């Protein structure tokens, strides 16, 4: 099986604090990978390093065998990696449709002069982009709300728009930062099916951070556990669940 993402001993040092310490991970194609760990374990820092928002102080990251450390975040997106945020970050004053359309920006097929002169190329590509955006909205069941302002949507819908927007960039890999945060059990369940569905439909590899254990254990094929910046366990959900180190990290040491 092909390796999509390969983190090789990456370390992030903030002054005297090592937020992530020599972390290694191999994510294989078409799998859903879960990254769990207590608060402050360094999960989001790890995400930020993978997406290029932070530069690891040591180590290398390969995305489809291409080193991506040092690349600008928007460049990494154009290589096929998209992300969502822990606290949903939609473009609040844009419509749902426009939000999705921004995801096509890096593949834009017309230039400034096409824009100013409204050339056939501009008209054609705008039409294609709108159609593609509608297709994406349809796959998240939000085509009826295409013209609503993003800030007017419910929380669950906003999460879906954020994922649709990330899908618009045409990713091979999707990074979800706590997708189920703030959702009720019903919404969480439907999100689980939804993530399964888009993985099949768009042939995605998914890496996600999540606190909801039921969600992670049911959805993920493979789990890595992070504590104080160090990977303390990795494996199938049932293996990780039984790992004494993991239990200690979450519940504290009973013998201490």
């Amino acid at each position, binding site marked *: 099986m092909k390796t999509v993402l390969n983190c090789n001993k990456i370390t992030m040092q903030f002054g005297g604090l090592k937020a992530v310490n020599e972390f290694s991970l191999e994510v294989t194609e078409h799998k859903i990978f879960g990254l769990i760990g207590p608060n402050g374990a360094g999960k989001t820092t790890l995400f930020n390093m993978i*997406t290029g*928002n932070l530069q690891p102080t040591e180590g290398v990251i390969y995305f489809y065998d291409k080193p991506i450390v040092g690349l*600008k*975040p*928007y460049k990494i*997106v*154009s290589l096929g990696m*998209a*992300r969502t*945020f822990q606290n949903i*970050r*939609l*473009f*609040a*004053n*844009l419509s749902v449709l*426009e939000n999705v*359309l*921004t*995801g*096509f*920006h*890096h593949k*834009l097929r*017309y230039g*400034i002069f096409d*824009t*100013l002169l*409204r050339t056939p190329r*501009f008209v054609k590509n*705008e039409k294609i*982009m709108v159609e593609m955006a509608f297709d994406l909205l349809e796959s998240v069941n939000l085509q009826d709300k295409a013209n609503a302002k993003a800030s007017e949507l419910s929380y669950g819908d906003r999460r879906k728009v954020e994922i649709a*927007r*990330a899908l*618009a*960039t045409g990713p091979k890999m999707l990074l979800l930062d706590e997708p189920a945060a703030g959702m009720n059990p019903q919404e969480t369940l439907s999100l689980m099916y939804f993530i399964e569905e888009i993985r099949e439909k768009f042939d995605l590899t998914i890496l996600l951070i999540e606190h909801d254990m039921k969600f992670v254990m049911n959805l993920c094929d493979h789990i890595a556990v992070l504590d104080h910046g160090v990977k303390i366990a990795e494996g199938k959900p049932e293996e990780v669940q039984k790992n004494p180190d993991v239990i200690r990290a979450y519940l504290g040491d009973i013998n201490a």
Partner: protein
Amino acid sequence: MKKNTIFTISAIVVLFLFLLYASHNFSAYNIRILNNVAIFLILAASYNLINGVTGQFSLEPNGFAAIGAYTAAILTLTPAQKSAMFIITPMVPWLQSVHMAFLPALIVAGLVTAFVGFILGFPVFRVRGDYLAIVTLGFGLTIRVVSNNTISITNGALGLKGIGNYTTLWWSWGWAVLAMIVIMRLINSEYGRAMKAVRDDEDAAIAMGINTFRVKMTAFVTSAFFEGVAGGLLAHLITTISPTLFTFFFTFNLLIIIVIGGLGSMTGTAIATVLVIWGSELLRFVEQPMHIFSLTIPGIPGMRMVIFAILLIIIMIFARDGLMGQKEFSWDSFFKFFKKNKKLAK
């Protein structure tokens, strides 16, 4: 052709018919106000592109307008005029001899300003938010100091006099309409969406694969181009320019306009420009001495600004998003509004 495009074209035709009527029948004073409205419309609309649409709060238009005004004026002045004017230090020879017609001079003014904007963009867009405002404010102040001291180019504090009054209603409104079309088309495209995305959440925009630096630069350079042209038009309207014309208050006036009109709304900017420029002429009477019954109030210069300040406070309290918010005027909503009123009347 779409129905709305036909409406827009006919609106532009009506505007130019009105200008044709105005150019023959209006007094010189009123024509001057109309010219002023057009020039400030160009300035405010392009300022709104960077401030309202792209959300980069910056304070540089006085600097850009100054560069445009000086460039255009130096290019249209004849060599003889220049040698007569530069009495402290003679002008640098290559500028002394150059001479151009009005239109190429305006375009060169726009291009020079756009180039300055491009260079300025590199340091400026390294910072965000308040810092951006401070850096661009510094640029505006620097341009004034530079124009005061590069005497062999700008004639220093004496300024440039005798600039041909070439700015007619056709030139000013022609450029205003062109600027509006270019800016509106830019906004209603993927570039515009990216600009608004940067305004709403820059980090999320980066995560969508948007090269935010390039997006900001596109808005900034477009804005600089039209501010340069507008500066050139202004120079050829008032025929005398000096560094004191381009103080921070120049920028402040534009800021009032775009805030009243609504940050991010071009049609709002158009309405606000008419209100503010024409309104400040109407309000001239408050600076005259007044007699109310037996009470005599001496004329207080600057009273108009007080009224504008009060107006701004009222707008900030009751309509925080300005007249139009981020919405644009559209023919559909225009007709819907009238239909609704008809229904109510029945």
